[in-house]
Structures are given as C-alpha cells and as structure tokens.
C-alpha cells in the first residue's frame, strides 16, 4: 500500500473518531471474527511457519499460511556454485533427514551427467535413505504426540533417534550436517562397525516402537484429539498435489520407491502403507507402520550388502579417493580439474525425484554444459503439503491446529528453501 493511501485512510479514521463518541458499543460482543497471528515464533509451528487464523469464538473460519521466514535463496546459490559445492546446502533443506536429501540431490546430478554407480553404492544409499526416514518419522510422531500433550513419547522416540545419529556419526563424521554423498558415490565406505551398530539398533527397535504404540493406542486423550481432526477428502488431497504419508493416509498407495523405482529398491521386499481415514490419527499410524517397513528394508539391505567399490569409476566426473590424491599425479590432476572446473554435464534438463520421509523430493536441473547448473529448482514436499493446511483446519477448533501441524510434519528449512 502506498504511503499516500495509508495517510488518507488514517485521516478518515481520525475524522470518524472525532465526529462521534469513541466508546465502542456492540449489540452482541460475540458476533465478531477475530484474526489471530500464530507464529513465526511459536513452539507448535515446528520452526518459523506463520499462520493467520480467522476465528469465530474458538472455531477456525479461515487460515492463511505465510512462508519465507527461512528463505535463504538456495536456488540462486546453486546457480553460482559447482555441483559438488551444493551438496552441503542440501543438508539444510530438510534438516531432520539430511542424509536422504544428499542422496536425492546426487541422484539428480548423476541422471543429468549420465553416471552409473556401483551396486554397493546403491545399497549404502538405500541404507542411508531408510535410516533417515526412521529418524525423521521418530521426530514427527514424537513431536506430534507432544503437541497434543503426551510428552513421554517424544523422549522415547528421541532416545531411539539418538542411536541412528550415532551411526551417522561413525559413517559420515557428523550427526546432523552429514554431506555424505558425492556425485558418483559416497565420501566414505560403509564399515563393519556401522553394520554392528545398525543391527543392534534394529534388534531393539521393534520393541521400542511397540512401547510407543502401547502408550498411545488406547490413550483416550490422544485419540480424542486426533481422530477425525484435519480431515480432507481424498479428491481434494490429490488436487492439492500433496505427497508422502499424507497422501497415503488418504488411501492413495503412491510411493516412488515402488512406482518409479530408483537405487536398489526393486530388490527390496516392503509394503506401501495406506490408511483410509485421512485424519491426523491415520497419518500418525501410517508413519508408525512406515518405520516398521523401513526397518524391514534395512534388515534386507544390510544382509545383502554387496562387496565392491563404493564410487563409480568415471575420472572425468567423480572425485578421486583422498589417499591417492595426495600421492599420485593423475589423481591430483583429476581432483584439481573437478574442483576448479567441475563436472561438465551435457546440455539438457532433467527432473529426478526420490520418496523422502515427507513426500516427493525432486530436483529439476537445467544444464548449459558448464560446471555450474544454469537453473536448479528444488521441489520440496513440505511446501506443497502445507498448502493443504487451510483445508485441514477450516471448521475445527483452534487447539486442533496444533495437532494438524504435527500431523503434516513440515520442516521449514525445506519449505522455504
């Protein structure tokens, strides 16, 4: 609004106030819609989501999400960085499952450049993706339960997640900002210690999920606050382009791991979990069941992990191992060329997506043949899923908003890019 119209508006209000008695008299004080500003700093909005809510008493009439409080311009940064330089930035997209973002990004670059990775690398990436899915769903289920009042669940799920972060630590050297993948492979190999730790985790995991479920399955308060809350019909969910557990909880069995297979998922035996209710409770149980399926995939992948190289043999595009870089001339040249000039994928544009824990995580890359992408679009699941929020909260109570945001499980780092 321009400053002039703002001024005329103010002077009009002032004139109106001067003309008459300023005390407000309403026939019915309850006949007013109230606009409430929720966030961006609010513990239940899981980050910096801001919601403008129009209320009639305690009932939500309308809600408008406002994004952009964590916008860092990653797509602009990507255009000015080489393909390798952007890998650490992908950690900061969905910061609850950084390692699967790494995988999703390098898969897109490999598709663009036409790099085929060895079988062992594919298996390690499957392990990474599924560990990330469990870790992310543990936070999602725990924090959703906490939002509706069951604090214990959060503590129990975080205890489990801690074990996964310890595996990340051994595997990648970092607990959160993993930056583990490289174009054509990984930075380090999967070690026997990781196998031992993962097996120990999987042994206890089944019982731990059971314990968490036991806390909630017959919990009257939890069920009352989630059942039928945030219902959106299946057709509307599809029309809004929602993906991931939200879409599956509405009865649509869409899972890119099965439908558009990538990595070594065709060799894995797992079920696509769906529910019919499309409410907060259904989303919660879809996530719980998906964790069990992920554990199933982890068991198969760790048992069948093939031997062999964990990085593709393509010297023009794939970084050499650290050891030979310091001792051999060819590898030093290769490292120098890849760092300074970059992998030059041919001119073209591709779209590549994975099923991340929140939904479809896609990268649309336009290459002009140089070492930096001409344009890179990040298709983040959280942003699209948040679009369904106004539909979910409309007609509900204001306290339901908290449960609904928990059931969407948005990560603002990803939604705002």
């Amino acid at each position: 609004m321009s400053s002039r119209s703002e001024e005329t508006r103010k002077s009009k209000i002032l004139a109106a106030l001067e003309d008459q008695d300023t005390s407000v008299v309403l026939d019915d004080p309850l006949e007013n819609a109230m606009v409430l500003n929720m966030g961006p700093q609010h513990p239940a909005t899981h980050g910096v989501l801001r919601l403008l809510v129009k209320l009639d008493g305690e009932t939500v009439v309308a809600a408008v999400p406002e994004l952009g409080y964590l916008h860092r311009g990653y797509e602009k940064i990507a255009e000015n960085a080489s393909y390798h330089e952007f890998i650490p930035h992908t950690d900061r997209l969905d910061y609850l499952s950084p390692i699967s973002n790494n995988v999703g990004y390098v898969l897109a670059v490999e598709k663009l450049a036409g790099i085929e990775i060895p079988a062992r690398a594919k298996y390690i990436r499957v392990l990474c993706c599924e560990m990330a899915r469990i870790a992310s769903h543990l936070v999602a289920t725990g924090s959703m339960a906490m939002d509706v009042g069951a604090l214990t669940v959060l503590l129990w799920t975080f205890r489990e997640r801690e074990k996964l972060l310890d595996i990340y630590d051994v595997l990648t050297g970092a607990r959160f900002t993993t930056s583990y993948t490289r174009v054509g492979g990984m930075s380090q190999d999967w070690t026997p210690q990781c196998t031992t730790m993962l097996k120990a985790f999987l042994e206890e995991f089944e019982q731990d999920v059971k314990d968490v479920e036991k806390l909630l399955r017959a919990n009257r308060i939890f069920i009352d606050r989630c059942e039928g809350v945030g219902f959106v019909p299946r057709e509307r969910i599809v029309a809004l382009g929602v993906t991931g557990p939200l879409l599956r909880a509405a009865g649509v069995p869409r899972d890119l791991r099965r439908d558009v297979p990538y990595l070594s998922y065709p060799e894995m035996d797992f079920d696509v979990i769906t529910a019919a209710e499309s409410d907060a409770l259904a989303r919660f149980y879809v996530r719980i069941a998906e964790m069990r399926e992920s554990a199933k995939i982890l068991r198969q992948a760790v048992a069948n992990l093939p031997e062999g190289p964990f990085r593709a043999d393509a010297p023009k595009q794939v970084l050499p191992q650290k050891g030979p870089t310091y001792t051999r001339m060819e590898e030093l040249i290769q490292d120098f060329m890849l760092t300074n000039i970059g992998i030059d994928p041919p001119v073209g544009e591709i779209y590549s997506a994975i099923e991340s824990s929140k939904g479809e995580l896609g990268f649309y890359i336009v290459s002009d043949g140089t070492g930096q992408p001409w344009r890179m679009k990040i298709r983040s699941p959280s942003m699209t899923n948040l679009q369904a929020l106004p539909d979910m909260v409309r007609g509900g109570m204001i306290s339901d908003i908290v449960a609904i945001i928990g059931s969407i499980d948005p990560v603002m780092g990803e939604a705002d890019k």
Partner: protein
Amino acid sequence: MTNDDILARLNATHAANILSHQEYRGDLTIVVRKEAIVKVAMTVRDDPALAFDLVIDVLGVDMSRPENRFEVVYVLYSITGRRHLCLKVLVDEETLVVPSVTGVWPGANWHERETFDMFGIRFEGHPDLRRLYMPEEFEYYPLRKDFPLLGIPDSLPLPRR
C-alpha cells in the same frame, strides 16, 4: 505408458497446440503453445489414458535469450500411470503473462506464486497472486539472471538502529 504413447495421444487432440517436444535421459518434455496451456492441461488430467492428476511443480527458468526469454515448466505425475511428464510454455519478456492452471490443479497455487515471486511472470486468473517468499514491498525478481548474487543494496528494509 511410454513417451511415444503420450505424444501420440496428445497429438491426436492437440496437434495444433504442441510446438515441439524433447526427450533427454528418458524424460519427456512437451512444449505447448502458451495460450492453449489450460486446454492441454485439462486433457492431460481428464483423459483416462493419461490421468496426470498430481501437479508436482510449476517452475520458471530464465534462459537469458533475446526471444522467449522465460520458460515455465509444469512437472506432473500420474498416480495410475506411475510416471512423470513435463509440459513447457515459452514466455516473452514483453508480455510476461501466462494463463493460470489453478483451475485445473488447485495445488499449482503456491508454485505459481513462487514463480511470480522469483521471475515476475504473472499468472492470469490466479486467485491470490502475491509474493510467496520475498516481502511484499520488494521490487526485484531475485532468480532472474540480471539480479546479482549479493543482492541490491537497500532493496530490503532493515531494522533501524
């Protein structure tokens, strides 16, 4: 459903609206006449043999060329067909208006807002065309190639000391 099937199916009804197509690494992208995008989108969604019912993304690209500087790409997914498809329209710098597909897929709403925010491309018929990420009073379009990486000084109001 292969790429050729989709092309044949669309050519049967929309031959005049399809300008060209490209295939790269298995991805099919169909370039559609800008004025006809809503019609083509309707067909692509409602034809039971295609059924691209999920809008995955709508994005802009600044190609930085004299004619048809911008491109708008629609990434679609078919739940029954289990595959992706890209539609593309070319946008001239002078007009910068594209018909909105929010009437076909309501989920395109925020994606079109983001494209407007980043490139200044207006979507005709959009119910609520506001900036999505940048502040309302921001005057530039950050993902255009002529916008510098470091930003433009004083373009964003900062808190007073």
